[in-house]
């Protein structure tokens, strides 16, 4: 689609490098229109405790309809889990409710930063892979931790750009670049912390395979327009990565070939 080139997760071909969250939109209509504008490959969803008579005001129906219309797959998450055991149990419930083996694995270890717990995350990933899940782990940018998740059988890694919902962008570009360089064959997705289309474009320019974001669209003044902006930025970043950016230099290089000097003597 639009020169982005398709990519694969567990044998499933995906046409877009935009993964969109479905939470926090002002209405089901805006959510549906945002999905149409974003044209994502994946829409993330969650699970909640069901109480008798508790309705969701049509948001879940809107997700199903819009995802079907744009050809997006659903990716349920384990948001709110603090232990591997909790996450494993919730993943099984998600598989039954959504009819997919795909699971976005979230196991949070700190309530202030919502930073993933690397130990519990790895334990849960190992169990879920053994149970036949395709595990998409939300992780930090720690290289060794990421290697362990790949070794556990995760087909993709989703390091954070910044804490969830913070909109701070890519706080540690060095770590993200290092991941890309040290794990050249891994499928890498920046998840969390992206606040502006430029952040998403930068992730793609760095060679990341996709981005997953939610709040930056849902909390925008005009979510539908922002979804479109992200779609274009992600496309631009991917095309730029494929094109190969020029090397940075610490000195000026004249772009106009005027020779040694135009009229006066050379300035030294």
């Amino acid at each position, binding site marked *: 689609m639009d020169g982005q080139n398709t990519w694969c997760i567990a044998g499933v071909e995906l046409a877009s490098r935009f993964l969109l*969250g*479905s*939470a*926090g*939109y002002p209405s089901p209509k805006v*959510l549906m229109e945002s999905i149409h504008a974003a044209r994502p490959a994946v829409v*993330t*969803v*969650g*699970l*909640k*405790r*069901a*109480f*008798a008579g*508790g309705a*969701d005001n049509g*948001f*879940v129906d809107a*997700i199903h309809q819009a995802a079907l219309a744009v050809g997006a797959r659903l990716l*349920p*998450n384990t*948001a709110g889990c603090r232990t591997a*055991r*909790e996450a494993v*149990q*919730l993943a*099984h*419930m*998600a598989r*039954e*409710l*959504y009819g997919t083996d795909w699971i976005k694995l979230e196991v949070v270890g700190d309530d202030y930063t919502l930073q993933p717990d690397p130990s519990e995350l790895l334990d849960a990933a190992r169990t879920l892979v053994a149970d036949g899940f395709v595990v998409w782990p939300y992780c930090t940018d720690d290289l060794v931790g990421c290697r362990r998740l790949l070794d556990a059988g995760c087909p993709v890694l989703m390091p954070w750009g910044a804490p*969830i*919902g913070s909109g701070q962008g890519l706080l540690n570009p060095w770590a993200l670049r290092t991941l890309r360089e040290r794990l050249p064959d891994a499928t890498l997705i920046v998840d969390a912390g992206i606040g502006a289309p430029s952040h998403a474009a930068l992730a793609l320019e760095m060679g990341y395979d996709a981005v997953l974001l*939610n*709040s930056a669209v849902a909390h925008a003044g005009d979510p539908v327009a922002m979804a479109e902006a992200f779609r274009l930025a992600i496309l631009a970043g991917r095309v730029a990565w494929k094109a190969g950016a020029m090397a940075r230099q610490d000195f000026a290089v004249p772009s106009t070939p005027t020779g040694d000097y135009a009229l006066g003597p050379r300035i030294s």
Partner: protein
Amino acid sequence: MDETSQVAIELNGEIRTFPLGTTLAIVVAERGYDPISVATAINGSFVARHMRQACMLGQGDVVVFFAPMVGG
């Protein structure tokens, strides 16, 4: 009905009593849920849809229902 013929269970945080021998499938129906619209867990462990009929509830069991929702 005497107390020994009943079990007290916790449903989404609310204590309820049911006749001894009540299954998870019965409770799902009693709550008015379409069986395919919720996932179930007892004491923190997932109980698959096809197991609900055979899953007898015991005294003090904690039953939780989960449903789809938006998510990031």
